């Protein structure tokens, strides 16, 4: 899995897209004044890093998942520290559980995101509902 380099402008772009207006999300000086090395990503930015691993799962022919039938059920982010511009992150996906419920399948996948030192940054957990045949 290649690493993901968090860019300052990407953090700003994502911040604007989720209506995040805090100076710590946009202004490196404000971020440094708050004790960060650079601008801080909004909590849900982790999904951008997680997405690459989820795409792998959905593309896996053995998983047998039809993308058009997938609905996002739950999402959770558990942080050891926030994501900051300049971070070089690596995500590892594991499937935690697969349940069948009335023709639908519920797949819970967990992406563990670590920095270039191997230290934990965030764990993103998604439950995807795969709708069965109508």
């Amino acid at each position: 899995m290649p690493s993901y380099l968090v860019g300052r402008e990407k953090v700003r772009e994502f911040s604007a897209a989720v209506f995040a207006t805090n100076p710590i999300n946009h202004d490196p000086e404000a971020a440094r004044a708050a004790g960060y090395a650079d601008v801080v990503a909004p909590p849900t930015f982790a999904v951008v890093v997680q997405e690459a691993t989820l795409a792998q799962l959905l593309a896996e022919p053995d998983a047998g998942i039809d993308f058009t039938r997938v609905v996002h059920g739950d999402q959770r982010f558990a942080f050891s520290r926030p994501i900051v511009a300049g971070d070089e992150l690596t995500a590892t996906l594991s499937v935690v559980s697969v349940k069948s419920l009335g023709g639908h399948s519920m797949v819970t996948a967990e992406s563990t995101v670590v920095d270039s030192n191997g230290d934990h940054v965030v764990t993103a957990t998604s439950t995807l509902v795969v709708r069965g045949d109508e």
Partner: protein
Amino acid sequence: MTAITPPSTPVLESLETGEIVAESSFALTRDALVRYAGASGDFNPIHYRDDVAEAVGLPGVLAHGMLTMGLAIQPVVDWLGDPGRVLDYQVRFTRPVHVEPDFGAVVTVIAKVGTLDVEAGVARIDLTVTVNGVTVLGKAQARVTLA
């Protein structure tokens, strides 16, 4: 946006369970959906094409669940004064947000104190997220560190 920025980090001891700490409304438009698609890389066409959305049985274009989740935490971030104070954030996507081509949709967020752990300096903040009075996110909770 109507979020109020506090002068400093809220103090845990001064909070009470059930207290409203932040409240805000967001006008979601089709433009906002396109902006989020580009920023996040989620180009599923049900978030910008009515014909595709209707072909899969939806009433029309829907907001990305992750966009609703992403904006719903912002009033809490503004109250905290630092996005790094969010330790944990989870939601359940209970109802889709239908975004009209002309009027869009207004998402309203109310953040209340759920529980307080004074020893750890951590509060659980519960979010009520609605569109036209209907809840769209369930079990929307954030754990945050306070001064």
